[in-house]
């Protein structure tokens, strides 16, 4: 990932800011320019919407062959989470053991290190999920 691209996406990565269609009130994350449901009628009506960060695990899997940034945490869990706003987000699920995860598990968004460019490069931070206890 390049620094400019990362920097442009900071709002979504740190704050979980999606968009809401002003026509049908559906929420999208990551943000879209146009509502796929309302199409032309949504133009100019898509507005920023900060997600609560809370949701439930829909499905999850344990990853054993990681990308290099995740080597330190292997094996790790990736989950698809249905957010309270009825939108799905995919992310790493941390601070829980694989055998304790189940569909419906309530989770919250947290900000963690996602990786780094290099030992002397920029550090990337972004959202992951933690169980609500």
């Amino acid at each position, binding site marked *: 990932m390049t620094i400019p691209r990362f920097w442009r996406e*900071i709002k979504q990565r*740190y*704050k979980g800011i999606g968009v809401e269609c002003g026509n049908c009130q559906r929420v999208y994350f990551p943000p879209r320019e146009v509502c796929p449901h309302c199409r032309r009628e949504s133009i100019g009506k898509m507005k920023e919407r*900060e997600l609560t960060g809370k949701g439930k695990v829909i499905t999850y899997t344990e990853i054993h062959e990681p990308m*290099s940034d995740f*080597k*330190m*945490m292997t094996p790790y869990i990736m989950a698809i989470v249905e957010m309270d706003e009825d939108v799905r987000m995919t992310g790493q699920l*941390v*601070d829980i053991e694989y055998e304790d995860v189940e569909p419906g598990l309530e989770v919250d968004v*947290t*900000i*963690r*290190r*996602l990786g780094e460019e290099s030992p002397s490069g920029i*550090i990337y*931070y972004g959202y*992951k999920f933690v169980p609500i*206890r």
Partner: protein
Amino acid sequence: MKSSKEVGIKGYAGYVPRYRISPTEIGEVWGKDGARMGKGLNIQSKSVPSPDEDVISISIQAAKWAVKRAKLRGEDIGAIYVGSESHPYAVKPTATIVAAAVGATPYLTAADYEFACKAGTAAFQTCMGLVASGMIKNGMAIGSDTSQGAPGDALEYSAAAGGAAFIIGADDLIAKINYTTSFTTDTPDFWRREGQKYPSHGGRFTGQPAYFKHIAGCTNVLFEETGTEPDDFDYAVFHQPNGKFPVKIAKKMGFTMEQIGPGLLVPRIGNTYSGAVPLGLAATLDVAEPGSRILVTSYGSGAGSDSFDIEVTDRIEEIRERDVPSVEDVISNSVYISYAMYAKFREKIDRGEW
């Protein structure tokens, strides 16, 4: 030092990573009696950050919860100061990333603070000044660390991770800060040179002329200038590099175990450095009642102390219901790891080139 306008705390939260290691487990690796070491330090376990946690992520978690608890929006925060001795970047402020994460950017002032373990309380005082002068409405002071001791060094048994964030303002206070004092000298008890991974310490020099002298000096001047004594306070929080020092100084100054109990976290989580006093204060606020008075004295090597006379208001009850975990909730969610896992988490294993 008394501010010309009433200032205090509007919201707060603490965060401690989930992993723990015991002194016994550490001692086993280095051929030491870890259990005895732990007993001597009064530390049963210390917190260990996960590989994806650092001072920035810990500060962000505490900051987000504190903002939520105070029912503020990011843009309501006019200043953010993060005190730490383990900022991930040597150059690039932690405070900028925390500010972006809570949505406070771009119209705020921000900086990182360093003063060993008291950088967090130095941030308190700066925010108090900015709020009292009317320059900002709300400021955020954070103390947070992921400090390390060299493998096998005595510090390895205590150096832990955690942090807490406080929002300082003039209205909607959950606790008033009545008074603050500071006590600063040039004392070489503990230091880390630029570029060194682990700190150095002056051995026995760290006790009497450093910790005890500064904490007593700072607290006594607060007593004198406010006309108070230990009995006037319901709770007290002292810096806690281990479990022995704060108990010893409390007794010496005339405080009881009941007064320091709620804020004494070091036996369970270790020394969280800049996070220690802020976390101890957060845990104390979690159990305090309206009208409770709390004495707080931090200590930072090098050396200095900051004391605060804090008085809890009725509003404390309201903000407890706001969907933010208490320090106890956070700390009790823990799991022990082996020394091997700990060495991997803390990057003590040379991985060569990946």
